[in-house]
C-alpha cells in the first residue's frame, strides 16, 4: 500500500540522511548539483528508503535517484508492485 504522505516521509528520510532542513529539499532539486550531496549519501538514501518501506530498489536504479520526485516516483512504483 502506498502511504498518502509518501512525499513527506521520503523528504524526511532524505533530510535526515543528508543532514539538511526538510524545507530546503524541493521536489526537483538535484541531490548532487543543487544540494551538495555526494554519491555516497545518494546510496545511503536508497538504503534508508528500502528499510523504511520494505522495498528493494533495483541496483541499476540507484544512480537514477537524483531528486525527491524521482525517489518518490520509484518508491511508489515498488510499493504498487508489491501490492
Amino acid at each position, binding site marked *: 500500500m502506498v502511504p498518502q504522505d509518501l512525499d513527506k516521509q521520503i523528504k524526511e528520510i532524505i533530510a535526515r540522511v543528508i543532514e539538511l532542513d526538510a524545507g530546503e529539499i524541493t521536489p526537483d532539486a538535484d541531490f548532487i548539483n543543487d544540494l551538495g550531496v*555526494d*554519491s*555516497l549519501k545518494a546510496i*545511503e538514501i536508497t*538504503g*534508508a528508503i528500502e528499510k523504511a518501506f520494505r522495498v528493494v530498489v533495483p*541496483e541499476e536504479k*540507484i544512480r537514477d535517484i537524483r531528486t525527491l520526485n524521482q525517489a518518490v516516483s520509484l518508491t511508489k512504483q515498488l510499493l504498487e508492485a508489491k501490492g
Partner: protein
Amino acid sequence: MDSQRVVITGIGPIASIGIGKDEVWSSVTEGKTGLKSEEYSISDKASQKFYLHKAKDFKLCDLGIDKAVLNDIQTWKDEEIGKDLKYILGVVKLALDDSRLSFDPKDTKNKVGLVLTHENPGLDDFYQKVIDESFDLLKNNSSISKEEYFKGFFGKFQKRAYDLQTFMFLYHAAKAFGFHGYSLFINNACASGLYALEAAADIIKSGKCQAVISAGVDLTSIFKLLWFKGIGMYAEDGLIKPFSKDRNGFVFGEGGAGIVLESLESAKKRKAHIYAEYSGGGFSLEGWKVTIPDLNGDSYKKALSEALTKAQKETIDLLVPHGVGTTVADSHEAKAINEVFGRIKPPITALKPYVGHNLGSCCLLETAILMMALGNNLIPATLNVNDIDSKLGMDLVTTSKKSEIKIIVKMACGFAGYNGATIFKKIC
C-alpha cells in the same frame, strides 16, 4: 596445541612486478609497478587501449610438472591448457618449492589438499572462442539453420563448456601435482583469497590434511575491462589511488599467488621456514547489492571486529585494507576501520597500486607480499597518493618505513557483499 595452530610455510607469487617472492619483493621495496598500456581488439579494425598490470610470462614446461600428466590434461582439453590453469600451476609450483614440503604424489592417501579460488576460471578464453568461431561459422554460411548452428556449436564447445565448471579447474590442478587430500574450490568475489586461507586453516585443524595450498590467479581480458569500465570503476589514468581525494577507480592486475599452510606441529617437525601464523579471520555477507556495498550496514565492521578477537588484544602493527581506490568502496572501508579503531589506528597501507587489482586472487597475492613485509619488518608505502581524503580519516603510510611488524590485519570487501578480515602473526 600445535596441531590446532596453522602457519604459512610457502609463498608463490606471480605478478606484473615479478615471478617468485624475491623478484616481487624487490620491486615492492623499489616502489616499482608493472603498469602498462595494452591494446585490445574487438574487431579486425578497431582496438582500444587499457591500462593494466600485466603478469610476467613463463613457460609451462619450466615448472617441472610431470609431462605425462600435463599431456593428459591437454589431451582431455583437446587444446592448450589455457592461461588461467597455466598461472594456477605456476603459483602452486612456486609455493610448493618455497615450502620444501615433501609428499608422494603417487600416494593416493597423501593428505595434501588444495583450496583454489578464481572468480571465473576459463571464462574469458571461452568467451573469445565462442565469439571468434561462431562469427566464422555464421559468416561462411549465411543460410545456416538453427539446428545446424546448434550442432556445430555444441560439437565445438561442449568440452570447453564442461571444463568451465569449477570442479574441473580444481581437478586439473590437483592432478598436476598429485594432491589427494581434502580439496575445495572457493568463490567469494574479491574476498575469495581470505576465505581460501580460512578454509585451508579449518581443513588443517580438523586433521583432514597435513598441508593445504591455497591458490588463486586472475588474468585480464577485454570482457572484464569493458564490464568494469561500463560500471565506472576503471581508472582512466591507470592509477589506483586508495583513499585519496582524486581516487577514480582501479585497473586490473594479472597473476596471483599460492600459499602453503600447515599445522605448527607439522612445520616444526620438518623444520620448515615459518613466515607467520594464520590466526584466523572474521567474515560476513551483506546480502545487499552486487556492485555497491551497504553503507548503512555494519557487516564489514563485524568482520573486522571478529578478526581482531583472533589477535587476542595485541597491538596491530599494520592494517592492509582492500584499497581499490573507488569512491564508494574506500569510504565503506574507512567507515568500518574508523568505527572499530576510533581515532588511534594502526599504520595503514594499501598494496594494489603495486600490482593492480587481481580480483579473486588479490588477497592471496597481497598475503604473499605481506609475508615478506613481516619478515623484513618493512611497511611498503601506498603509492600514487598525493592528497589523502581527509574526510575518510585514514592516515596512510606514504613513505616506506622500517618498523617492527608482529601482527598484520588484511581486509577485503568484495562484490555481492563478501567481507573478510584476517590476522597474520609473527612467530618468535
